[in-house]
């Protein structure tokens, strides 16, 4: 029996249930718009609502638009349609993604900081001093190790990082745009233009290939040994994600978490807060090999397909360094355009790759760079904005 054969009050009851169900899904973190509810009602007009499995598939096809949400949907469906009048229980039993929890207010930390600043009127000279110092401060700041910065210096570094913009490292696409110096003839525009003069004078229009920045995929180690750097790097990744569209960010400690969506939020504080909420193993141990395996298997084909540059930010201090690590690094290296390993340990002048894990990873990277202060991040940006070399295996080491 389809829904339009029901008695009017039953139909109404049913519609209420669907609306309630959609609301429940929404609170469980699934993006369910009002359009989907209307769709669901019209879908149920054509389906036998007596068959539970069919209703399940129908509603799933409408409400679930990402495979990851299928599990939430299934739990919600089972709970809701067992006892739809008690749908409030649903909210207690479904594991809610972070968005559903109360969001920390944007910029709260900055507001607090602003409030705790001494008032301007108190010491005008103090301000003067600040300005004078700031030039040399900046120079010192450029070279200062993130791990040794004071809170104020970190704040300054964060500001500098937010100002950094990646020049668009270009990747030729196979799409075309009007371009007077382009190589291809734009017949359509040429003809249209020539018609304007009755076909007499032919003014040739050309097409050139569209260029777009190569996607960047960052794998950031958030284990305990990296904790002094994590926040700054996240800020850096947030800043470059703001400037270009295709930046995917994964955090790993003992497990891998995709925080790309969380990091897309405009406000850096809010973005970082939702990142840390998404990660379960903050500042714990490191399992690089397992995390890379997870990445290679589940994500590599999805995020590396369009000639991506991979930034691996890690100190390479792996507990379980065995042949698996070399294997996974090799796979990662072969599936991306360029693999750049950023290692804060390189700040030590006499750094040698003694740790077993580092030795295993080194042969598989295209570049090995330090990343511990502002100037090294600045250098990284310069590197990223250079034209991309063809895929090569040689190891370029640049010391601090």
């Amino acid at each position, binding site marked *: 029996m389809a829904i339009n054969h029901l008695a009017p009050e039953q139909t109404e009851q049913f519609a209420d249930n669907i609306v309630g169900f959609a609301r429940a899904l929404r609170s469980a973190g699934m993006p369910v718009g009002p359009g989907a509810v209307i769709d669901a009602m019209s879908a149920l007009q054509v389906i036998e609502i007596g068959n539970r499995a069919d209703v399940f*598939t129908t509603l799933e096809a409408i409400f679930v638009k990402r495979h990851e949400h299928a599990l939430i949907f299934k739990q919600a469906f089972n709970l809701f349609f067992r006892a739809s009048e008690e749908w409030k229980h649903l909210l207690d039993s479904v594991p809610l993604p972070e968005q559903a929890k109360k969001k920390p207010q944007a910029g709260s930390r900055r507001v607090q900081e602003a409030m705790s600043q001494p008032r301007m009127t108190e010491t005008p000279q103090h301000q003067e001093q600040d300005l004078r110092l700031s030039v040399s401060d900046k120079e010192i700041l450029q070279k200062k190790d993130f791990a040794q910065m004071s809170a104020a210096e970190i704040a300054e570094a964060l500001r500098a990082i937010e100002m950094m913009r990646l020049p668009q490292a270009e990747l030729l696409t196979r799409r075309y745009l009007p371009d007077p110096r382009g190589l291809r003839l734009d017949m359509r525009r040429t003809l249209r233009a020539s018609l304007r003069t009755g076909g007499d004078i032919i003014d040739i229009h050309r097409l050139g290939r569209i260029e777009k920045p190569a996607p960047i995929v960052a794998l950031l180690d958030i284990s305990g040994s990296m904790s002094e750097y994590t926040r700054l790097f996240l800020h850096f990744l947030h800043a470059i994600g703001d400037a270009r569209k295709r930046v995917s960010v994964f955090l790993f400690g003992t497990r891998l978490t995709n925080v790309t969506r969380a990091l897309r939020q405009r406000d850096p504080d809010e973005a970082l807060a939702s990142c840390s909420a998404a990660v379960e193993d903050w500042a714990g141990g490191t399992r690089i090999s397992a995390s890379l395996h997870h990445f290679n298997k589940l994500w590599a084909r999805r995020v590396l397909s369009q000639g991506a540059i991979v930034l691996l930010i890690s100190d390479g201090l792996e507990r379980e360094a065995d042949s698996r690590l070399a294997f996974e690094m090799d796979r990662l290296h072969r599936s991306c355009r360029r693999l750049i390993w950023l290692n804060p340990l390189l700040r030590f002048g006499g750094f040698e790759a003694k740790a077993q894990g580092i030795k295993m990873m080194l042969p598989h990277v295209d570049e090995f760079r330090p990343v511990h202060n502002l100037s090294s991040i600045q250098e990284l940006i310069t590197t990223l904005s250079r034209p991309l070399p063809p895929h090569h295996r040689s190891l370029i080491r640049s010391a601090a």
Partner: protein
Amino acid sequence: MTSATLPASVDAMLELLTSRGYLAERSLATVTYLSLRMGRPLFLEGEAGVGKTEIAKVLSAALGRKLIRLQCYEGLDVSSAVYEWNSAAQMIAIRMAEAAGDTDRDQLSSDIFADRYMIKRPLLQALEPDVAGPPVLLIDELDRADEAFEAYLLEILSDFQVTIPEFGTVKAPHPPIVIITSNRTREIHDALKRRCLYHWVDYPAAERELAIVKTRVPGISAKLSQQVVRFVQALRNQDFYKSPGVAETIDWATALSELDARSLTPQVVGDTLGALLKYQDDITRMQGDTLQKVLKDATSEN
């Protein structure tokens, strides 16, 4: 080709697909039925080789509709997906008009940008009326096209119309049956998915896969087909870079059947493993003990 009537229930849909040798899960039949009844595109996602493309082919054959296929690739643009002007023919027409002393510019321009100088590509073809009924439009591997193309699809998929500057708007009298597939090499934008019915196509359960093998590889013995399916299902539980899909199962079963194999032996499996696994690393991992164990489980009688 005659146009068959649309199935009237999920069961009828299931029957229709089965009659063409496509053994679908009930859930897939349900969403396909819904997509036909609601006139909404069907968005199928899942691993490679689970039969996403196949369903469009089967639908078009079973309903007697034309199948129009748009294979996506990076750089796919309007001129290869929707339409293109036949510039050479237009040039000739201009020269002819000149030679005839025709000087009416507006006349010339409307002559030049007419239907007969237009080369229609799949998306425009799909909007044209067809005697057999609206065609089946298969937009295959959308994840390979770039984002700009996806945005272009939004207009077509929600209003089933295309705007051509020189020509006007072409609108389909009846919307085509649209099947979009993606292997998830990248995420498709939510805006596009919202216009579609979404379904994740999973690997089939052992029983269904056995039925599929029997249908698609008719000469195969009951014993061998059972071993093949058990072996493949066991492989999917292994931690491989690329697990074999149904298409690979069928390939493998066909290969074994061609080799007149009666049952799985280490020798025969070793020789034909390339039909199932497509990465050297995966094949290497399948040697030795792992192979012995999986093979033993697959061939044991119970």
